[in-house]
């Protein structure tokens, strides 16, 4: 299908974006990479009166390392994140996740901020941000604010970004000594949205796990941080008992969130989440 009629503006500063958002209210959508937005326009799932193309705001693109913080600007293309030496060194979880973010041609256009702000429940980067306890920077006419990733995702395609605001980027703590990451996802085709996936980050030293966070995606309306798995892993070695405990914890934690989609029921997704839980614990020992 074809998109409906809309007006288009390409502001060259954030101040202009805020003015346009104020004028148009709910009728406007921000266009970054467009890899979800234009698809939904073509399918007439969305019909905004105005698109505000922020691709001219080049200050919002880029990856900056300062001290032990890594900042990824909202307009940074997935391809740049995928190829970034800084990301590979300091944020190995995101480096591992990038090949799962859609396909090469989509990664060339799609942006980090678009993925976070769109908040697809089956998308990879929201879950990575939650596991890594990242912070998002958001700006509006009245100034800037920070929101922890763990409080940013509110519901299905719903985030903490308020009317008139724009996501500026994410801030991550660089990999600390002793920590490691692992990422796994099941999809019908490589690069498609996940049936279910998991991002993990924590320590495995002297044969024992500690401070491990797991977040599952594709199973709840938002990325789900499974708090009970941390307790099941804390201080324990890699063993069949530990894996069984983690899998049981995953069931308990995910059950209230699990939803079915048109291909897979909630029970299937819960089963697959347990399978991935076993694999991710193993992957953490090898990472």
């Amino acid at each position, binding site marked *: 299908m*074809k998109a409906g009629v809309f007006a288009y503006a390409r502001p060259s500063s954030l101040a202009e974006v805020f003015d346009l958002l104020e004028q148009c209210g709910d009728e406007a959508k921000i266009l970054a990479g*467009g890899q979800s937005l234009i698809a939904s326009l073509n399918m007439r799932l969305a019909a905004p009166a105005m698109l505000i193309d922020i691709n001219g705001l080049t200050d919002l693109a880029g990856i900056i390392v300062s001290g032990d913080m890594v900042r990824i600007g909202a307009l940074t293309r997935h391809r740049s994140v995928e190829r970034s030496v800084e990301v590979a060194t300091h944020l190995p979880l995101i480096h591992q996740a990038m090949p799962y973010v859609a396909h090469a*041609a989509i990664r060339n256009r799609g942006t980090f901020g678009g993925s976070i702000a769109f908040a697809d429940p089956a998308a990879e980067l929201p879950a990575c941000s939650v596991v890594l306890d990242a912070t998002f920077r958001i700006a509006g006419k009245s100034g800037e604010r920070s929101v922890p990733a763990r409080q940013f995702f509110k519901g299905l395609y719903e985030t903490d970004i308020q009317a008139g605001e724009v996501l500026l980027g994410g801030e991550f703590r660089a990999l600390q000594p002793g920590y490691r990451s692992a990422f796994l996802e099941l999809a019908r085709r*490589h690069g*498609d949205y996940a049936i279910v996936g998991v991002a993990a980050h924590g320590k495995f030293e002297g044969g024992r796990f500690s401070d491990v966070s797991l977040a599952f995606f594709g199973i709840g309306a938002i990325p789900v941080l499974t708090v009970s798995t941390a307790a099941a892993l804390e201080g324990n070695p890699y063993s069949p008992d530990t894996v069984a405990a983690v899998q049981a914890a995953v069931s308990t934690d995910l059950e209230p969130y699990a939803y079915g989609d048109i291909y897979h029921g909630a029970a299937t997704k819960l089963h697959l989440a347990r399978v991935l839980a076993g694999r991710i614990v193993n992957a953490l020992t090898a990472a």
Partner: protein
Amino acid sequence: MTPAQDTFDITLTVNGVSVSRRIAARQHLVDFLREELGLTGSHLGCEHGVCGACTVKVNGEIVRGCLMLALQADGASVETIEGLSESGAIADLQRAFHERNALQCGFCTPGMLIAAAELLECKPDATREEIRAHMAGNYCRCTGYQSIVEAVEVVCRGRVRQRA
């Protein structure tokens, strides 16, 4: 700032030729190429980014032509299968597709060729797994993946030999 409006004048380079048109904001790049310029080699399959039949190159990188507005290509350099064919840049790839029966109905083929061409440029020493991962964004509904991967692999090996 560009003032908000719903039609725009754009000028871009398509297959090395400068073109200018007045277009609607809602028109995506592949409709522009097909309807305005008559370049019908870029196909529209799903029109929501899933199938890859609309793959074209913008400023040297492959993109989904259905997920980019034509006006976003203002000032850009666009290459389509017509340009890549005429330049001879992918002649070896096209020959391999033919020899390996890597196309049946041919609908996906322009997108397949352009996606494969990017891999050949960036990573001609790609393993079979890497070829599969790179080509995963392009659907072939005649289920010809095995021969497509083989054709791409043959050309990868050939290009590596050429460089050696």
